[in-house]
């Protein structure tokens, strides 16, 4: 998505849903590591943040 994203994002905050949404597809699924261009560490951080945000109903589990 953003070739520079790996340099900007080291860790993700689950409360920052606007940022997290950029790494979701229209169905609300997390984009693959290949699409996000994140480092492995940042991608794990993204996954964790998205899952926390889903639990707190800040993001949807499934969007149709």
């Amino acid at each position, binding site marked *: 998505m953003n070739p520079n994203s790996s*340099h*900007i*994002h*080291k*860790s*993700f*905050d*689950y*409360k*920052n849903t606007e940022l997290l949404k950029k790494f979701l597809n229209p169905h609300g699924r997390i984009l693959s590591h290949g699409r996000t261009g994140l480092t492995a560490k940042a991608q794990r951080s993204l996954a964790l943040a998205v899952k*926390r945000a*889903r*639990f*707190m*109903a*800040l*993001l*949807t*589990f499934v969007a149709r």
Partner: protein
Amino acid sequence: MSENKVIDPELVRLYEISYLVSPALAEDKVHSAVLPLKDLLAGKNAAVSAEESPKFRRLAYPIRAAIAGGKKQVFDSASFGWIRFESEADTIGEAKKLLASSPDIIRFLIVKTDAPEPAKTFSSRHIRPADPAAPAFEPQGTGGSAETKVVVSSEELDRKIDELVGV
């Protein structure tokens, strides 16, 4: 925040609790829902480093939850707030019980955090020059007692903070 603590700094950790307050509560009373939690934290000498008071928002999906020990209800909106604090681990167990039994909190999440604010976490490779100094401290740490090690690290911390503030 500098009360006379008997807390061992080794055991203190940064935690963050976020919560959803029931929309049934009037907007001016939303803050009262988390007062028991804040009292608990104050009683435990927890240092609150950041917080955001509950703000009303639509939920991404409807939540079914029982409030005030009654029947389960469906909520599609709630007030979302969070609080970040430093404390020992046993506080968390009590906070968890407190929140679970709280009548107005429909959901909460307790997480351990490391970074204070993930604002400018990256692009800060230039702030690394503290590294060359690090090896100089290491022999001291291994040779000296644990007490001196703590002193050195706090100095280093101060210096880093100064650097960051300067930037």
